[in-house]
């Protein structure tokens, strides 16, 4: 019996993984070969998807990207014995793209069957939770603080401090809430982990619950992620049956249960207080802070809120210790970040690497340049609210503080690459337009400012009073940044002003009103 792996990750499915899996089974039947097919998560080398792997005595051998049409030929050239083929890449773990990574959070993703608890345990799963059960809650908090872990959702707030606040509060009911509303363009790490290693998230949240004294948790997943929703729901059921969730987890005194809540297509619900409103079944309107959600969070109770990536980093911290995790990284940015290389890129995918790696290394060494083969002109780092970096900033190390120094943000670690055909005035306009569409409407700078921003950029593009309108735009951005209630309006100026400053020529073209002309078409 030979084991063959074909990912069930949504990205792999989007380029035909199901069809490839069916073709492999059909061909195996036809040739009377015994094949055991496992649907694993993705290894993150998305440019090779669907990436088919075959178990051999020397390790797993990779082939990709495979189409159903390639399958017969793969069998003919002996891929079941790991023989060479034009789509072959040798041992998966030796592919430089993979080998050069430092996989802590994604250590299992792509290796295991995501829903198999046996697989999870075999690859070090639940070791962190077992340790946590035997520790005092405050010692768990201390371990997380020692690790230097900071909120991976983008804000970079120290996770240990957040947990300590909830730990120190008395309360009849406390909650853990996971923000899986991964709405930023260029990010897919949360999705990949939820689909490829869901127990890792469940374990991380359970550890958080023990540390903070919570008994109920919610995972808020965006509706655009149907696969992740299904996998997590299934994983929670299985974990419950195996007593990794529910009452008296593994015979301990701790009880914790977990529920999935679906979003409904509102970007703003990735903002933590808006997410809380949404979990409560309400309009996703941002709340005033204070009180901070750690003190008055879900249903008014103390709540630990973290991003998927933050919770998923916790099991290894509790398994190997805060010091181990802290040894990765630079400055005050400790540990690893799952970088996501996306957009116009030849070799797009997920690269987990310690902080300190540069945009250039990620885009050139891993990414291999643009998909179109043209020069890279801009990279937007940190989602739609992140800055557009011109080539001159590609060597800034990925570090929260170093990025802040150049008016940029690391955010969730997503990189969207653009080639030299990009019109940065148009991208600046889009940033404002996106804010118009997705603002919750509570505060004026965001709600009205974004609309005025679109109008002002249109005038700049049309060369209508350009100098004056450039000044007005800069002023508007200051108002939005300083006066908005949350990061939506507060950070929209980042992409806008970074485009203005980094790519001034695009705002200085002859006033052909090109975009409006296109829009009117």
């Amino acid at each position, binding site marked *: 019996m030979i084991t063959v792996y074909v990912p069930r990750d*949504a*990205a792999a*499915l*989007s*380029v035909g993984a199901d069809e490839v899996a069916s073709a492999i089974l059909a061909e195996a039947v036809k040739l009377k070969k015994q094949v055991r097919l496992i649907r694993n998560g993705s290894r993150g080398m*998305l*440019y090779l*998807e669907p990436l088919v792997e075959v178990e051999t005595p020397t390790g797993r051998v990779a082939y990709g990207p495979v189409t159903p049409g390639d399958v017969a030929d793969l069998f003919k050239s002996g891929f079941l014995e790991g023989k060479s083929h034009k789509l072959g890449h040798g041992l998966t773990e030796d592919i430089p793209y993979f080998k050069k990574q430092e996989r802590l959070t994604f250590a299992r993703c792509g290796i295991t069957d995501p829903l198999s608890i046996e697989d999870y345990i075999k690859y070090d799963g639940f070791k962190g939770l077992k340790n946590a059960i035997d520790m005092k809650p405050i010692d768990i908090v201390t371990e997380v603080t020692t690790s230097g872990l900071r909120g991976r959702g983008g804000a970079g707030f120290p996770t240990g401090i957040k947990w300590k606040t909830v730990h120190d509060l008395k309360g009849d009911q406390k909650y853990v809430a996971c923000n899986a509303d*991964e*709405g*930023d*363009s*260029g*990010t*897919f790490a*949360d*999705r990949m982990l939820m689909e490829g290693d869901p127990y890792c998230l469940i374990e991380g949240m359970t550890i958080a619950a023990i540390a903070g004294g919570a008994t109920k948790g919610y995972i808020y997943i965006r*509706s*655009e*992620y*149907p*696969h992740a929703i299904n996998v997590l729901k299934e994983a929670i059921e299985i974990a419950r049956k195996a007593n990794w969730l529910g009452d008296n987890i593994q015979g301990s005194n701790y009880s914790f249960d977990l529920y999935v*809540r*679906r*979003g*409904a*297509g*509102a*970007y703003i619900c990735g903002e933590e207080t808006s997410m809380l409103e949404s*979990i*409560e*079944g*309400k*309009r*996703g*309107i941002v709340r005033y802070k204070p009180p901070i959600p750690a003190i008055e969070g879900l*249903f008014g109770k103390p709540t630990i809120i973290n991003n998927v990536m933050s919770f998923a980093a916790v099991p290894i911290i509790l398994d190997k210790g805060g010091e181990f995790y802290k040894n990765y990284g630079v400055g005050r940015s400790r540990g690893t970040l799952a970088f*996501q*290389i*996306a*957009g*116009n*890129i030849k070799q*797009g*995918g*997920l690269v987990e690497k310690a902080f300190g790696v540069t945009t250039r290394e990620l885009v050139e060494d891993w990414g291999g340049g643009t*998909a179109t083969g043209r020069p890279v002109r801009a990279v*937007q780092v940190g989602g*739609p609210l992140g800055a557009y970096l011109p080539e001159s900033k590609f060597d800034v190390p990925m570090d929260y503080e170093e990025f802040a120094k150049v008016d940029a943000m690391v955010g969730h670690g*997503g990189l*969207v*690459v*653009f*080639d030299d055909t*990009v019109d940065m005035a148009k*991208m600046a306009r*889009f940033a404002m337009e*996106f804010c118009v*569409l997705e603002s919750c409407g509570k505060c004026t700078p965001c709600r009205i400012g974004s609309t005025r921003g679109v109008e002002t950029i249109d005038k700049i593009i049309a060369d209508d009073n350009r100098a004056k309108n450039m000044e007005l735009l800069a002023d508007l951005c200051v108002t939005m940044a300083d006066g908005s209630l949350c990061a939506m309006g507060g950070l929209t100026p980042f992409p806008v002003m970074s485009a203005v400053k980094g790519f001034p020529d695009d705002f200085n073209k002859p006033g052909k009103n090109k975009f409006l002309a296109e829009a009117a*078409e």
Partner: protein
Amino acid sequence: MSKKPKSGLAPAPVKSASNPAELKALSVCASHGNRASELLEILHDVQHELGYVPESVLPVIANAVNLSRAEVHGVVTFYHDFKREPVGRHTIKICRAEACQSMGTDHLCKHAEKSLKTDMGGTSPDGSVTIEQVFCLGNCALSPAILIGDKLYGKVDAKRFDEIVAGLSKETAA
């Protein structure tokens, strides 16, 4: 008479379900324990059953979960997912976020509008397909991406788009 909603707003007038859509909405609410905190899940399920969230079910839902009609209306209108009018047999969500823009989604959107003879957000004249813009499907390394029901597609250019749409009409015919 139901008790006064917590918000202090007037309770929805008691209204018994009088048509299949309203009955369906009632049973969905019941399956969620008539809990107001599960309003989003309720609306998702109602939309799944009925294809959209008709105006007539709002008071029924409000009554069942003990909210004011205004509160339910507020939630339905806040979220992009909830449709207030019937849509086509298939809804194609086309990603228009930055990563997909870098790979030409603007061109794809125009192509979709032209080939399906409708604007973004509209339904093709034969009622088969609704096209809708979304911002990010989490498939940013394989842009442009589209989502049809629960099926995600990557690297969608105009040609692949046409093939996918042709496949849909075959599915419908079968």
